[in-house]
């Protein structure tokens, strides 16, 4: 596992366990098929560095987040589920980037957006067991350091 992947794993574990109240297990070596991780949000960031973090989760994790964070379930919970997933991506991004880019870099995070943008081949990634589901976190840092 690369240093970036370790940082993503630590930040994601913190977010899922502290914010989402979900237990995180091992990192998995065999990535899930994309259709097994249907809910995706991304958080773009800019500033000292530019890039994007994408979070993909399985349906059970997607549903559990809003239920655990707000006690919401059923059809009315659908819009909240996307908000909950977006906040999870935001928190993972905010916690992982200082480890990867240094703690003195000012970054501005954009609001989470549904979907996953195309990634460069150099994107870092980690996939984790979350309860009985999965979550994959990808970090794309295509830009050079800005002066």
């Amino acid at each position: 596992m690369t240093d970036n992947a370790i940082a993503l794993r630590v930040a994601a574990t913190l977010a899922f366990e502290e914010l989402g109240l979900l237990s995180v297990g091992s990192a998995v070596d065999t990535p899930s098929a994309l259709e097994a991780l249907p809910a995706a949000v991304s958080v773009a960031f800019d500033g000292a560095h530019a890039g994007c973090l994408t979070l993909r989760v399985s349906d059970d994790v997607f549903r559990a987040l809003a239920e655990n964070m707000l006690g919401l379930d059923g059809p009315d919970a659908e819009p909240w589920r996307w908000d909950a997933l977006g906040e999870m991506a935001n928190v993972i991004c905010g916690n992982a980037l200082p480890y990867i880019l240094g703690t003195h870099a000012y970054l501005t995070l954009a609001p989470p957006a549904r979907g996953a943008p195309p990634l460069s081949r150099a994107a870092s990634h980690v996939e984790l067991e979350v309860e009985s589901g999965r979550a994959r976190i990808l970090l794309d840092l295509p830009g050079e350091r800005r002066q």
Partner: protein
Amino acid sequence: MIDRAEAPGADRGPLCVLVVDDSRVMRAMIIRTLRLTGLSLGTVHEAADGLAGLDILETEPVTLALVDINMPRLSGLDMLARLGRSATGPRVIVVSSDGSDARASQVLQMGHGFLHKPFAPEDLRDAVLRALDAPGR
């Protein structure tokens, strides 16, 4: 059940709170967590960005504002810069997932509290009590 008379901060009277965050999940979580801490809460206002937050502060007697940084229209830091810091203004805690030392230092130098997401209920309670006890009012 927490006895309201013994709730932390109860001697100050109910807090009039403003939560400014573009994520309604985070606003709901912060309010839910505030209630769990046993702090004595009065009216709780919500705003989805800095401009909406300033509008509320113009008309409501807010004693405590919890403010996100990255928001559309007007960021939390720009909102606080416009608000300034006065003896009669609200105590402010910036709540952000930005874990960089640079950001935390920037907020602390502005004279506000800083709470890093994710946080435990006791972290929020402690941050609120610190903000209320901080000198300057």
